């Protein structure tokens, strides 16, 4: 757990005259559980969009696994090993849960497998997520919590080296948060590096080896959870004083 899997170097992103990210520099190490916090509108999702390739950053470099990502499309970054979830779930609503997972399997992680092997791979992940019995259901009948789990399951199905989870736990009860944490830790122990964006402080502090905090597009703190919770700047950013 020593070399950097992801390097974010002076990344800047503007929306018109508004600077959503300004000169953000950080590193995520291989195998790390990495927390990303910050108040609403601080630029967390924007940073994820730049890393996953759905937005193009105007300044700075993003290097993944030794490879400069500039110019790479989102699907190429997914193939290279970065997969993200969406803060507001975006299921493939005309497909069953199983078929949702089969998209990343067919296009990324298991593209040389047979259809039956793909189904098995999808089923295995659904079992880990506790969703196996819903495999053949449409997504329209899912609860908010199940939709969030599906977001995670679908991203995991791409077998990423780096999984980025954007508020997978919003709206979940304490027990459900623990359940999702257990799942993520299990995949992390199997070798998946994970960036977790979260507003639930207990979860992100319990989960992360290291945490960074964004505020108004600037990186204001970086450190282990105990350091971050005591940080005066972080406190100010959240309390708005």
């Amino acid at each position, binding site marked *: 757990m020593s070399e950097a899997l992801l390097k974010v170097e002076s990344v800047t992103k503007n929306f018109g005259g508004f600077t959503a990210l300004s000169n953000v520099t950080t590193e995520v190490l291989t195998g790390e559980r990495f927390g990303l916090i910050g108040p609403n509108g601080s630029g967390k999702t924007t940073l994820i969009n730049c890393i996953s390739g759905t937005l193009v950053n105007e300044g700075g470099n993003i290097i993944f696994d030794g490879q400069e990502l500039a110019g790479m499309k989102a699907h190429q970054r997914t*193939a290279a090993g970065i997969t993200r979830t*969406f803060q507001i779930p975006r299921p*493939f609503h005309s497909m069953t849960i199983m078929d949702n997972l089969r*998209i990343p399997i067919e*296009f990324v992680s298991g593209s040389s497998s047979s259809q039956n092997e793909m189904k098995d791979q999808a089923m295995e992940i659904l079992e880990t997520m506790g969703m196996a019995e819903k495999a053949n259901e449409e997504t329209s009948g899912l609860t908010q919590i199940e939709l969030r789990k599906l977001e995670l399951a679908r991203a995991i199905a791409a077998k990423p080296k780096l999984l980025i989870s954007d508020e997978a736990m919003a709206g979940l009860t304490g027990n459900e948060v623990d359940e999702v944490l257990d799942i993520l830790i299990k995949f992390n122990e199997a070798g998946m590096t994970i960036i977790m964006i979260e507003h639930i402080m207990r979860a992100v502090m319990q989960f992360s080896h290291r945490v960074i905090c964004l505020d108004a597009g600037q990186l204001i703190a970086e450190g282990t959870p105990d350091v971050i919770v005591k940080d005066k700047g972080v406190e100010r950013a959240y309390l708005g004083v």
Partner: protein
Amino acid sequence: MRFKFEIGCVLVLLACFIFTQADINRFYYFAGFAILQYVMISTAWNILGGYGGYINFGTAGFLGVGSYAAIALIEFYGAGIIEQIVAAGIIAGFLGLAIGFFTLRLKGVYFAIATLALAIVLETIVNNWDYVGGAAGVSILPPRKPELLGILIVDRKGDGIFQNNKEYLFFLMAVMAVMSVWIARTIEFGKLGRGLNAIKDNEEAAECMGVPTLKLKLVATVISGALMGMAGAIFPSYVTYVDPPTAFNLELAVNSLAMPMIGGTFTWIGPVVGSILLGTVQQVAIVTISSEINLLIIGVLLIFFVTVAPQGIVGWFMKKNK
């Protein structure tokens, strides 16, 4: 059974062939040809529009390009119908690639508007291209005794496979329509179809799940455009007189998207059902009322289905049988 669909295709073609050999009222040829043409065009449209969710308003452009590619080849060296169809498919496919390259980055409604503009621009160009008749149009003289691979295809005295050219073209149209449906179905049950479905559901999520969205959309546009071009290529020989408004036929273009939407866009059988039903209704309306009533019928049905049953006839039946 494993090859149920393929056997069905062969049976349909056989039926169409027998139809050409029987002594049947000319009107039924005309109506049957129109319906087969609709099956092909709406199936082609549905590959991009139904599976991928990108609404193409430019069907008339692809059809017209196919027709005029055929005319140009006839003028140029008297090309046979098969050459015309193949060339029109290639040219319309390239047109799809070019249009797709410039417009598929646009989302939804902008793509639709761009394709509509395409049809208008192309028609204007052909209007001013005298080699293929310009605005006045052009008459086609079908060859008297077409041969294919040394076999006499059409002969009035009965030495060929068909007695006249219309029968031959009818059968060719049937072959192309069945081929289109087979292609659409193969796409639907394959990786391309699943990728296009993901794009339709949520393009950004599809891209982030590893689907090369631009590439798949381009492939779909090329296949869809090529099939439309091929359908257009047979048209000049069939009607023997073409001018720009008939080649860039707006009514066909409206039908090409209305029929899949009414039949159901999510599966290959939707456009087939839509084309056969609406095509038949329209042909009956032409005889019993007037041809002007057709757009009205289509319009009313389209509004009904889009608002009340967006999954179309096929979707409605599937839900009922669940």
